[in-house]
């Protein structure tokens, strides 16, 4: 079994690295967007799946990171990486602020609060036309002045790999254990000596920082930012990606995001039906395979494997 998962991981990594050489320019740009959604979805899975804080304001942090970086680069002419770093810092600070005021709220109250936060931020970005360009969009300095998307793609791969490494190290550490303890039962965690307040705020700040990183990357790649990136429908897409992959595992959520983004583009000719389809898929997954389709598939593989082992054991026994 272990060998199988190693082989799967290696095959995935190899196909991700070789991807730009196998496809045309259009699918390469899809690949770039897939990297963006993967970073955002993985960090949402960290916040909602691991730490149990259902935030529907995650895309608001994406847009906050994107606008912060875009505007700073535009106003002060600083290098793009510096702008993106500033976006990450702003998101971490605002995220810990939202996490802090959200401390007294649980479950649905926090979800409501973050929806409201997200919509207020979007309305501000739409209304303050002099600063953000409103719905018309804000022109953002591109990351690379090349015609090919190849550098952007590999940057995305590096950012995703680094984000995943940090998040996976985090959930494997004691902090990850605290996050899960708080998710399962806050009072019991507190009684067990977990500093619930500190770790709830921390989870929010970290996840928001990654959302800001994703936002900065997206903004400087796409070149024109509109407030729509922070809309509830975009949030729905990210939630669908995480849940369909498996929101309680960062890797599963990432694979869900990559898979669904390609599915989105493959279904492009069906236009509007896509979000309906993902809504339906999200509902079906929640209803029948709550741990995500990947966990379901993995379970099947393991069952087949177990059957084969036991049959072999029986044959040996005979």
């Amino acid at each position: 079994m272990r060998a199988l998962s190693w082989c799967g991981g290696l095959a995935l990594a190899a196909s991700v690295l070789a991807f730009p050489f196998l496809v045309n320019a259009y699918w390469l740009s899809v690949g770039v967007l897939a990297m963006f959604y993967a970073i955002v979805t993985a960090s949402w899975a960290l916040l909602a799946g691991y730490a149990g804080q259902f935030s529907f304001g995650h895309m608001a942090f994406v847009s906050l990171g994107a606008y912060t970086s875009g505007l700073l680069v535009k106003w002060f002419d600083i290098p793009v990486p510096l702008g993106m770093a500033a976006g990450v810092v702003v998101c971490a600070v605002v995220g810990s602020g939202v996490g802090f005021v959200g401390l007294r709220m649980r479950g649905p109250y926090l979800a409501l609060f973050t929806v409201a936060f997200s919509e207020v931020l979007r309305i501000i970005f739409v209304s303050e036309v002099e600063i953000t360009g409103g719905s018309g969009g804000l022109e953002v300095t591109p990351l690379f002045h090349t015609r090919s998307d190849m550098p952007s793609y590999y940057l995305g791969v590096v950012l995703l790999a680094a984000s995943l490494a940090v998040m996976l190290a985090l959930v494997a550490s004691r902090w990850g254990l605290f996050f899960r303890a708080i998710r399962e039962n806050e009072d019991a965690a507190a009684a067990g000596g977990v500093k619930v307040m500190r770790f709830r705020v921390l989870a929010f700040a970290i996840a928001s920082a990654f959302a800001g990183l994703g936002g900065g990357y997206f903004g400087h790649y796409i070149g024109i930012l509109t407030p729509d990136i922070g809309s509830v429908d975009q949030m729905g897409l990210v939630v669908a990606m995480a849940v369909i992959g498996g929101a309680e595992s960062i890797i599963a959520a990432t694979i869900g995001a990559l898979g669904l983004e390609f599915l989105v583009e493959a279904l492009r000719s069906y236009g509007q039906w896509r979000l309906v389809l993902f809504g339906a898929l999200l509902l079906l997954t929640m209803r029948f395979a709550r741990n995500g389709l990947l966990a379901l598939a993995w379970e099947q593989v393991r069952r087949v494997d177990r059957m084969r082992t036991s049959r072999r054991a029986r044959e040996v026994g005979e």
Partner: protein
Amino acid sequence: MTDYLLIQALNGLTIGIIYAVIAAGLTVIFSILRIVNFAHGEIYMMGGYFSYFAIALFGIPPLLAVIAAMLTSFALSILAERTLLTPLYSPTTERKGDYGILVTFGISIFLRNLALIIYGPYPLRPPSFFAGALIAGPLIMTWDRVFAGGAGIVMLAALIWFMQRTPWGEALNAVSQSRESAAIVGIDDQRFYMLAFGLGGALAGGAGALVGPIYSLSPSMGLIPDTQAFAIVILGGMGSVAGSILAGLLIGISESMFIALFPDPSRSLTYAQAFSLVILMIVLLVRPTGLFGRVHTAME
């Protein structure tokens, strides 16, 4: 200026009644099923369209169309509840709160985007209930608004009568107080979860049908009233129908005052949308149990 403010206050009053109807539906659902229904605004939107198509396709008179919209919203809600929400009642479901949030959020995404395909993105305006306007001295108010306000009051009164004076209403109340005790005295709770979700949906759909001729219909029309309804439900105290009615009026009037008094008219309409959201955030921060909250309906 005072006339203008008075007209705005009256408009706010009628809209406040509509908000109260939406919020009362949300409260019924919340107090029985113990979930925050993120799809409530989308049922409201569907109700508006149901009424429109009842008029446009079948030639039903506008008044009956409101009732038809309520019935279809009732049926749609029950369909959603039976197919998707039953795991909420099963003892083997872990973290039911999370399940409720994600599933109702998924329903809202699904319905909104389905509506976008079926009805198209362009706003539709159903015909008026009554043409013309009520003119009393300096005050002008369209008959549609007067009718919407009146019909909203009838719906709220019917709800209160139903909840307090009928056996089914009493059973709903019993389930909201304690599922176990209700089961002990022989109340089949499954039936009443269904009824509560359907009833909440019917109220939302009815509100959508009433609003149609005043604002127009669009697939995303449910987003803002949804958060307004949340603000109202929480301000009024989770689970308190009377509290939601008072809070609905309060928010309706203060919102139209905000629009009337906002210094920069070019932004007043977009920021008016943010108004209720900010109220919601403040209420959640300062007084999450609301003004008239009942202890036993606190969220787990």
